[in-house]
């Protein structure tokens, strides 16, 4: 049992999960401290309201409003949980989008643009095909595939300029984001898709339910009554599993990851690195587009079309989702749900206290900041283990062996940690610069015993 535990502890995936959990906790704590400082500094807010804000920041998902005496009440809230699943749907897909690009060594900050292009094409198809002649289910499928394809094509652009012209994909992505924002506004400006029936909604596109197109509920509305949840979350989870299979079980996935680990070595091994860069960005773009399609096909979401000054936050929030998940497609499902939970929390904070929803953005940003050096956190986590191993080495006079890395996967039933997690490297940026755990861990093992102590 003890050995089992220590094996689990030694695995890289476990450390990734722990590092993410530590990032989350510190992020939440920073949010709480800011609420506390603002509450104390502001005479109209005070300590009591700060305490309410902090409780909501941590438990907002289970908030059920205020009781008659004005105190906050907590309990099972099906509306909150259903809405969380609904909002997690696009986040999971943009998270997958960023994660796939990460594995190929690319930083897909272009998810907002790909998301916007997916939105535009999905809405045009879903509203443009007459539902009198074509069955709505078919329209749904066409619109979903169209949105995915649009996202994929838009994602190709940064991929192409990165592969063939050597332009930094971060800059190319940012430029395509703003071009997409202007393009989408241009397309909808003056079009027939604008909602002119309800005159309070001048800046919006019709809901797809105007054309009888909406995602099936699959009975989820029975479990979470009055919430917005629909079958999209199931589609998102299925896509996450497909992406996991693609990345860890197929040749293409292996080639993509090889390009991410070392582009030049991959080319030397006969892998078409340029093709794989474009392909990776196309897959990433397609995933973002699919996220947009699932969000807007739900039937009761509206798109504000005059968007040339703002980019959708869902696209950017794919970055923390992927980073927290250490780019593991299955873990993205959970971190996506966590991020949308923060969204619900923000809503509860705005509705119930004098604070506002931007505190959850601060929490998210802090988490991203921490995941930039999650490698350091992981090193601190393994520091104790390393020291013990070093001590044993001194006693036995033999190498401790690479026991941490060679434990065969799947021995224990830990569902959240899948083999893919060991290759995932959250701090691995596009520059191939940060030492990856594969590089650094064996090096640390071989270090002199005296040096091991410095780590902690």
């Amino acid at each position, binding site marked *: 049992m003890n050995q089992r535990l220590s094996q689990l502890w030694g695995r890289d995936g476990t450390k990734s999960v722990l590092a993410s959990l530590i990032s989350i906790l510190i992020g939440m704590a920073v949010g709480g401290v*800011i609420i506390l400082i*603002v509450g104390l500094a*502001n005479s109209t807010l005070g300590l009591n309201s700060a305490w309410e804000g902090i409780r909501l920041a941590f438990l907002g998902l289970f908030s059920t409003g205020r009781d008659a005496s004005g105190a906050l009440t907590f309990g099972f809230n099906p509306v909150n949980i259903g809405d969380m699943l609904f909002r997690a749907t696009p986040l999971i897909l943009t998270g997958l989008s960023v994660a796939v690009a990460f594995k190929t060594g690319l*930083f897909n*900050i272009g998810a907002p643009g790909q998301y916007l292009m997916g939105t535009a094409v999905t809405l045009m198809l879903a509203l443009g095909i007459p539902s009198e002649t074509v069955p709505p289910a078919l329209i749904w499928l066409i619109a979903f595939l169209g949105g995915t394809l649009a996202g994929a094509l838009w994602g190709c652009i940064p991929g192409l*300029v990165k592969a063939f*012209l*050597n*332009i*930094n994909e*971060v*800059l*190319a992505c*940012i*430029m*395509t984001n*703003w*071009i997409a924002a*202007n*393009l989408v*506004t*241009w397309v909808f*400006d003056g079009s027939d898709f604008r909602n002119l029936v309800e005159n309070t909604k001048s800046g919006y596109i019709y809901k797809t339910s105007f054309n009888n197109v909406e995602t099936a509920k699959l009975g989820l509305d029975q479990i979470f009554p009055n919430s917005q949840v629909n079958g999209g979350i199931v589609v998102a989870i299925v896509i996450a599993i497909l992406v996991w299979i693609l990345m860890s079980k197929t040749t293409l996935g292996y080639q993509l990851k090889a390009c991410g680990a070392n582009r030049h070595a991959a080319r030397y091994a006969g892998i078409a690195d340029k093709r794989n860069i474009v392909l990776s960005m196309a897959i990433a773009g397609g995933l973002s587009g699919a996220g947009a399609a699932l969000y807007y096909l739900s039937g009761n979401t509206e798109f504000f079309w005059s968007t*040339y*000054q*703002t980019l959708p936050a869902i696209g*950017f929030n794919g*970055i*923390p989702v992927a*980073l927290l998940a250490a780019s593991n497609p299955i873990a993205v499902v959970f971190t996506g749900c966590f991020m949308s939970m923060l969204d619900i929390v923000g809503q509860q904070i705005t509705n119930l206290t*004098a*604070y*506002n929803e*931007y*505190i959850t*953005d*601060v929490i*998210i*940003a*802090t988490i*991203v*900041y921490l*995941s*930039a*050096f999650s*490698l*350091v956190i992981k090193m601190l986590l393994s520091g104790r283990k390393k020291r013990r191993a070093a001590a044993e080495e001194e006693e036995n006079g033999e190498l401790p062996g690479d026991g941490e890395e060679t434990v065969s996967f799947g021995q224990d039933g830990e569902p959240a940690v899948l083999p893919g997690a060991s290759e995932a490297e*959250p*701090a*691995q*940026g*596009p*520059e191939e*610069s*940060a030492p990856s755990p594969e590089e650094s861990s064996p090096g640390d093992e071989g270090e002199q015993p005296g040096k091991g102590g410095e780590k902690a």
Partner: protein
Amino acid sequence: MTFLIQQTLLYAIPLMIVALAGVFAERSGIINLALEGIMIFGAFIGVLFVNLVQQAGVFDAAKEANNWVALQGFELMAMVAAAIMGAVFSLLLSFASVNLKADQTIGGTALNLLAPALVLFFIRIIANQNTLQMASGDAASWFMIKKSFFGYGRNDEMGFFGSTFIDKTYIATYICILVFVILSILLYKTRFGLRLRSCGENPQAADSLGINVYKMRYAGTTISGALAGMGGFVYALTTANCASTGDVAGFGFLALAVMIFGNWKPLNIAGAALLFGLFKCVAASYSSIDINGDGIFLLAEAGISPHFYRMLPYLITLVVLAFTSKKSRAPKAEGIPYDKGRR
């Protein structure tokens, strides 16, 4: 023509100074993707400073007496405040990327996410809306230099030079140009500049000559943060009527593009910034640009969608980068955390 030059300068100067901010960071070896976030933060601090000082009534007497020199001093103080807080904010990036050897791209992205979130959180609490404005009056009445200051009447002509570069301008524009020149000289003609640049090219060699790479990288990023914070406030002051909204419309990223287009060299950057400023100016005010003064608004009447003009700066950036990226020479060691044990 006067209008075109003035508008172009309004957009070009913040771009230029923020691109120089990028140069200082990257020449020391740190990729500063956080320029956008630092600009947002600097703009917020500057506007907050103006707002608070106005509420305290420090400059009310000067405003009453039309003492424009004092008001210019007020503007300078706000710029300094924005620069200092921008530098402090950028310490988050240098701490992560120098001390913790974190991934600089992700660290920068984190700051880009953090700045608008923090700024909007505080603006909502301070102003109960999503925009923080000046407490009274507007940027033009408080800070703009007008010809009446120099004894010209309403109908007097100042000549082309005067009406273009003195009337209806902000002193911030010229301060930025001055700072740009001074810092460019610092980077190229002083010992400090040479050492800073060496840390971005070959930090191991620099270290072997007794240069403290960590200190130099801290210095580069901090100067970068100060410049970006100041640039952010100048942007908010001159183009957004001294209001902070937690957004600078992608200017920080445009500045990065300007920096790459300018090949990390100050003089080229100044030229690139002017070019981008021109496109940005066309995008913002294409309908009121009268190029040759014959009363025909050519761009508005050409029948091209305004959305196209708005898209243009980003489109041009992409195209220009496509043509120049093969020749561009980035600092060799940028983005690589310096580790003394490696060679």
